[in-house]
């Protein structure tokens, strides 16, 4: 086969492929397709398979994803029935129910989500306004009303989304609950205060226990010392008693005892700093007045 024939064959194949792409199309599982003729929707297809079509500009094919799509609403501030500000984020699972209505009224997934967001915000505010904050957060599970809130929002949302946009909302869920920034800060402050209270209690317990132990120790010390001092005093008294028993012999000759004691005192009080003025009559200085006459 010559080069030119080969090139011609290749060109023909490419042209055939382009023509085929203009007259047939494939609907994949999970897709919804709307075919329009001169702009007018003539048929919608949801069954997977190969279908024929007219070439552009006679017919156009609009293709949408008909699987359940997740949509996440904004984290929005709403007011509960008891006047509490709360941030709530919901999500929804939706799918295209009527492809032709969807094409006519919505046109794209992004627009559908914008429309759905408006509805979701509207019914979220309205529904949560009928429930109190304690229906959202409570240690008593019987008081929590998540299921009822989600069912109420879904019921209100479902029919309107079908009628207005041709989409089915299969479920709605509360994804997240929060509090506004300023309130969150106050909650943090309270959490800190609780912890501080607990911490101070621990510290106080420690200090009081320490004080008690110290006082008890001091008390025991004082008692010990007092007991020891008493015993010591008693022992000293015994010593004095024993000494007094020995001193009884002084009573046999009290003049002599006193004389001897006076001698002791005399000797002990005389120090280098003492100045004594004595009379010459004082023994033995009376010798200064003359020698005594001793008996023969």
């Amino acid at each position, binding site marked *: 086969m010559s080069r030119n024939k*080969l090139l011609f064959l290749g060109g023909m194949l490419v042209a055939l492929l382009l023509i085929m*792409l*203009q007259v047939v199309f*494939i609907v*994949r*599982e*999970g897709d919804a397709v709307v075919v329009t003729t001169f702009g007018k929707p003539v048929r919608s297809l949801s069954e*997977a398979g190969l279908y024929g079509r007219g070439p*552009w500009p006679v017919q*156009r094919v609009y293709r949408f994803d008909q*699987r359940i799509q*997740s949509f996440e609403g904004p984290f929005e501030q709403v007011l509960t029935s008891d006047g509490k500000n709360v941030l709530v984020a919901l*999500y929804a699972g939706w799918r295209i129910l009527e492809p032709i209505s969807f094409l006519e009224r919505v046109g794209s997934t992004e627009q559908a989500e914008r429309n759905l967001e408006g509805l979701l915000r509207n019914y979220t505010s309205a529904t949560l306004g009928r429930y109190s*904050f304690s229906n*959202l957060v*409570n*240690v008593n599970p019987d008081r*929590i009303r998540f299921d009822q809130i989600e069912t109420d929002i879904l019921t209100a949302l479902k029919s309107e989304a079908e009628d207005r946009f041709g989409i089915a909302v299969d479920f709605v869920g509360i*994804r997240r*609950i929060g*509090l506004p920034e300023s309130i*969150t800060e106050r909650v943090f402050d309270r*959490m*800190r205060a609780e*912890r*501080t209270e607990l*911490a101070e209690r*621990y*510290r106080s317990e*420690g200090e009081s*226990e320490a*004080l*008690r*132990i110290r006082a008890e*120790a001091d008390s*025991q010390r004082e008692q*010990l010392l007092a*007991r*020891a001092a008493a*015993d010591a005093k008693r022992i*000293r008294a015994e*010593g*004095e008693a*024993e*000494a007094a028993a020995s*001193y009884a012999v002084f009573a046999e*000759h009290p003049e002599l005892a006193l004389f*001897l004691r006076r*001698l*002791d005192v005399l*000797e002990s009080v*005389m120090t*280098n700093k003492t*100045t*004594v*003025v004595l009379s010459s*009559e004082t*023994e033995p*200085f009376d010798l200064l*007045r003359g020698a005594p006459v001793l008996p023969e």
Partner: protein
Amino acid sequence: MGKRNEKLLVVLVALSAVAFLINHLLWTQFQSVLVPALHPYLALTALLCLALWARLRFARLAEDERRDQTQARDAASPSLFQTDENEIDPVSFIFAQRQYEKWFIPFLAPVLAVIFGYWSYRLFQSGFPLDEATNLLFVASLLIGQAFVFFLFGRYFLGLSRATSDRLLRGPGNIILLTALAIALAGVAAIITELGYALPERILRLVLIGYLAWLSIEWLINTIGYLYRPKRKDEQVVTYESRITALLTDPQSWANNIAQALDYQFGFGVSETGFYRFLQRVLLPLIVVQVLLLYALSTVVVLGPEEEAIKERFGNPLAPDGTPRHLTSGLHFKWPWPFETVRRHPARRILTTHVGFTKDPNNPHPRLIVWTQPHYLEEDQFIVAQRDVNQADLEDDAAVPVNFVTVNVPIEYRVTDLYRYLYRHNDPDGMLQMAAHRVITRELARRDLIELLGDERQEAGRRLFEALQERVRDLELGIDIVFMGLHGAHPPIPVGPAFESVIGSFEERETSILQARAYRNRILPLAQAEGDELIWMARADRARRADRASAEADWFQTRRRLHEDLPGIYTPRLYLDTVQRALAPVRKYIVATSPDLEVLIFNLEEKLRPDLFDFGPGRSEDMFL
């Protein structure tokens, strides 16, 4: 020949303008992101063809004028006012051509560089517009049609340019082929985008913009080279030509260059050998066969050990009996694209996701996780209730105090029903994340923070696992939860230090108590010892007193006996001995007269000078004092 080329160039200008308009319509109607990147290529084609048309036209008319002048000069008789041959009439085509060649052609390249450099910059600045293209197959068919037409013109121009007389057609020919190539690639990219793969289209857009910028640089380099290198007298200025583009758009020149290089390297005409000619003949069929083989390979599917797949026939995954065409790991065959396609997924692998935090790409696996420092890029805060001691007294609608908690929840899951996983939900992984968020929010809203961080943590984790399992079954996600853990439950970072301070205060309490016990342990033995000391001292005192008293009694008895044995002797002697000892160290004034008759005045403030006798030996202590 000259006029035909001019007409062809005019046709090219018109064709480029029409293509530009068509593409602009395609852009406004179908929003293909690639089409704006084709605009400068079409504009460049039109501008170059227009410039070359003027150049060829001036050259042809100037040549006609020269011929007429030569004929007129030959026919006319010599006269006094005969004009000089070199003198040029300023309103002639010869003058116009010279001015065009001198002042326009050399500056065409820098002007193009500025225009298209700025255009490429603006296109790059516009980023990636949101791709909302529709009817891409129609767009592709129109683009490929355009490319084909430009290709024919380009090849024709390049063919003509091989003759020396039409050398000037080479530059526009290369640019026309470049435009054809760009448009053809855009058409192929549009088809690929229609099949669901938008990446090639985006890459091609960047390549087209980048190539335009490169052309601008090359034009500037060509101009600088032209201005500063020596030039031949009859040299034609072609600074607007691109050598890189010539290599890209004229593969025949590649082959010629390769052949010449081989001939030069081997020293003989390799390109003249039978093998080389055979290779040249079969090269194109070989490439075609390669492409066909590549297409045929789309009939073979090899699934790895972790993979499963669903085979779609014309988009339908269900067999006639209504069951999915499910493929497991191994070798499988199918009809080629577009008759059958395969959607594969690592369904046997345990997949992982997480809720409650966003990993930091710079530190995806932190090694230190503490409550007081952020360990992820972002952490979600969940509301938890607080059990109030007076809870029983609260009214039904009374708001309970709340706390915040941060939890890191890893989720491991496995695809158990690939058909549901692929076709039931548009984004099953995202839906799983949302369902997990919902389950966690609900579970934590009924928990007390301290209990959640303490003994209820395991039970809460178990309940989360069961609730999420039930939820994914309700949603028909086609997955099974393998593991869900309540990891990293902790108070938010801003209150983390307060929680740590509680632990710190607990330690402080223990420290205070232990210090007090240490004090007690220190002072009580000391007190015991001090008490013992007192007692021992008292005992010593008692013994000392008793011994002293006993000694004094003995001493008294002895002296009494001496007093009785030596009456009148012992006592006076004792007295005098004592007076002697007592008065020896002291200063004494002995008054010889009777003190009753004299008044003596002593100035005891006067410092008495010690005399030598004052420094006698000290007194021996009385042992009983």
